[in-house]
């Protein structure tokens, strides 16, 4: 399968697509007025002229300040948005006793007779990730999940959580807008991996673990995995041949179990600062401070960042985990959080958690750092180098973030106000967490409704 590319908004540079999740940068773009999913329909962007844009120039260059209104025309933006070819969606209000948001392992296991489940994807990573799990058989788990899905067929709706509104929690399905009022909520919306930072991290051939597992695994045999946690190893175990790089100065957080599996399969784990990456035909070369590594694809699998924009939008606080550099939501009496949405990445641990049978030692052994912070990570595990793209939608680089940092702004909210970080199409679902980790900030931004563009 070919990997799509797009032309970026401000630099007009060609960016390789990395994600598969709806609502993340460049999964869906507008081509000649038509909304197109470029994961399903391959698209190659081409740029005649790159523009040397940066935020410091925008703010501080007197000439640029004078011609600011004209600069708007240089941005790569759609000329029109054609009518979406479907019948108008109906609006329906429903009341439920218990609502589950998310259809992955943890969501499905939380189903019972009184519950309605709405999920964007029914059964998640476990269907695609073939890496071994401790103490359980993956196929057995999938079989059980499928049985449960069948049993509760009429309690499961495929849809996306759009956000909290005065009228209720808004979900969008293929045919409806649902406004749901629920007495109790279980959030099982999982997590995602985010594109780390290094020179030329925007080029084609650098993809997320989620995209790799779902679409690219069969074609690309030799991969370079970026990450410092169990899921980095698990990604690597899906490939015929793989090497894992964790960033220089970051303390890896691997379980003994997965380190052994990596060794059995001959997966190399190295520390490195990435100085550059280069693509040549179907190969990609990673130049680190120590060596040159060649592969077919770079797959980033740093850590699973829970979908905190969802829990925050529901009104829940979060805290910054200094071991894993993830933001973890905190639940209350009415809203419970389970599985990947807590930060758990291992299905075995997640199943125990869903069954209320998880003890601290098991969590520490198979999902280190999630239930207990045991080391402080001084350096952001997303920083493989000093430059690179940070915000894909607004086309901002590390250089732009540094401009704000140098002025004394050191949290995503104020950096957003200076640079426009997180104000683009994905509304900060990637870059805000990256900048949070880089600044070790306890706070992110206000994730406002709607969380995804709503077409009415």
């Amino acid at each position, binding site marked *: 399968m070919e990997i799509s590319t797009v032309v970026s*908004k401000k630099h007009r540079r060609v960016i390789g697509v990395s994600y598969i999740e709806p609502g993340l940068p460049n999964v869906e773009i507008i081509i000649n*007025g038509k*909304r197109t999913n470029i994961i399903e329909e391959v698209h190659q962007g081409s740029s005649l002229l790159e523009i040397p844009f940066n935020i410091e120039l*925008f*703010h*501080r260059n*007197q000439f*640029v*300040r004078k011609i*600011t*209104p004209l*600069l*708007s*025309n240089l*941005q790569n*933006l*759609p*000329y*029109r*948005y*054609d*009518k*979406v070819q479907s019948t108008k969606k109906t*609006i329906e209000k429903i009341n439920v006793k218990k609502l589950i948001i998310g259809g992955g392992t943890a969501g499905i296991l939380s189903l019972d007779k009184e519950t309605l489940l709405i999920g964007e994807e029914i059964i998640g990573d476990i269907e695609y990730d073939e890496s071994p799990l401790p103490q359980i058989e993956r196929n057995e788990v999938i079989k059980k999940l499928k049985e449960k899905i069948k049993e509760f067929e009429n309690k499961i709706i495929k849809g996306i959580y759009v956000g*909290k*509104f*005065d*009228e*209720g929690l*808004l979900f969008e399905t293929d045919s409806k*807008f649902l*406004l749901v009022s629920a007495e109790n909520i279980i959030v099982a919306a999982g997590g995602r991996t985010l594109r780390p930072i290094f020179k030329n991290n925007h080029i084609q051939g650098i993809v997320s673990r989620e995209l790799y597992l779902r679409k690219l695994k069969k074609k690309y045999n030799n991969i370079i995995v970026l990450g410092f946690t169990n899921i980095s190893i698990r990604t690597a175990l899906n490939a015929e041949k793989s090497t894992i790089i964790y960033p220089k100065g970051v303390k890896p957080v691997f379980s003994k179990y997965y380190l052994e599996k990596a060794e059995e399969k001959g997966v190399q784990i190295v520390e490195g600062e990435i100085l550059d990456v280069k693509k040549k035909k179907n190969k990609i070369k990673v130049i680190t401070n120590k060596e040159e590594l060649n592969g077919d694809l770079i797959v980033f699998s740093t850590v699973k960042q829970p979908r905190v924009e969802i829990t925050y939008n529901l009104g829940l606080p979060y805290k910054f985990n200094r071991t894993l550099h993830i933001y973890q939501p905190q639940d209350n009496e009415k809203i419970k959080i389970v599985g990947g949405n807590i930060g758990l990445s291992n299905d075995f641990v997640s199943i125990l958690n869903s069954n209320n049978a998880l003890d601290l030692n098991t969590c520490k052994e198979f999902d280190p750092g999630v239930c207990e912070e045991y080391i402080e990570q001084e350096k952001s595990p997303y920083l493989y180098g000093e430059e690179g793209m940070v915000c894909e939608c607004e086309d901002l680089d590390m250089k732009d973030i540094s401009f704000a940092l140098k*002025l*004394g702004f050191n949290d995503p*909210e*104020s950096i957003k*106000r*200076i640079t*426009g970080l997180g*104000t*683009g*199409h994905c*509304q900060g679902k990637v870059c805000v967490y990256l900048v949070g980790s880089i600044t070790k900030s306890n706070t992110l931004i206000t994730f*406002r*409704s*709607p969380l*995804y*563009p*709503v*077409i*009415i």
Partner: protein
Amino acid sequence: MIIIIGAGAHGLSIAYHLKKKGIKDVILIEMKRIGYGSSSRNIARFRYHFYSKENVEYAKKAIPYLISQAKELFLNPAINITGYLWVLRDEKQIETFKKLDSFWKGLSIGGKFVKCKDFEYLNYDGECYFAPQNGSFHHDYILYSYYIEIMKDYKIVYDEATEILVESGRVKGIKTSSGKTIEGDKIVITAGAWSGKLLEKVKLPNYIEPERIEAFITEPIKYFIKPLIIDKEFYFSQTLKGEIIGGIETRIEKGFLPFTISFSEMVEFATKLKSLVKRIEGIGILRGWSGYYEMTPDHSHIMGYGENWPEGLYINAGYSGHGMMFAPYSGKLMADLVADDRKDPAIATFSPDRFTKYKLIEENLVI
């Protein structure tokens, strides 16, 4: 010590202008974060076209000052002259604008009647009124420019001012919700919609009432809608980043309501927008938020102090929907007043005493 309550556009502008004068002892109290109130929730437009003569006269000084500041601000305020366009849907509206037009012409800010079709992207074949002098800016870049200039010299305390301490007719300081006492001989209230609550603390009438309003922003599209467009029940404009931003004008909810948004209002905004503007049938709403208009009885702002106020207490608030565009100039006038006791004539015009002397400045063009 000068205490400024509220680090929004007005508080920061006063601080910035005080610093320019070389004043050393200034402290700001902020309840949440820089610009949390109306300064970071507005739609970042400026205009000369008000309903009252006083506001037009004020704008004629304030807007050129805002534009001239573009050169000295640290960040790029992205000032753009775009005009305002009113869509006139019926004879009554056309009559109103005929009167406004001659009023504005008399103040040398005349606009003109145009065919809406002159703006080819509009789906309306009728009369429009275009005021070309107005424009847009980037509110955060102005706000943060002020903040950047003062952050090293003035302390910002993140706390809520709960009491204003007065002794023998003079202000002495404030108390905060965390129990701190901060002493000061001059106190400036620039707490936006929350300013009225502080006046109540010193037994003064509360002239400022919040009215919640929702705003929405679409996915970006090539910049093609230059003016702010005001239709009968909604308004919108386009940012230089490409998003279309606006809201519904009809529903007014009073009081400190939560900053939530409603699905029905989002649907209404999107539907109205798409029926008026071409090429955007399939555009999505990207984000919504709400904020407060800070409403005085006549919808014009209050600045300075009242006759019977404790000595050393000042206010600059209550700008309904036009606070951001006036913040640079008002900050300058207020700094002159607070630091040098220099009283611009506008200070008397917009004094809170106008409510007891029945010299109201009726402002009916609240956008």
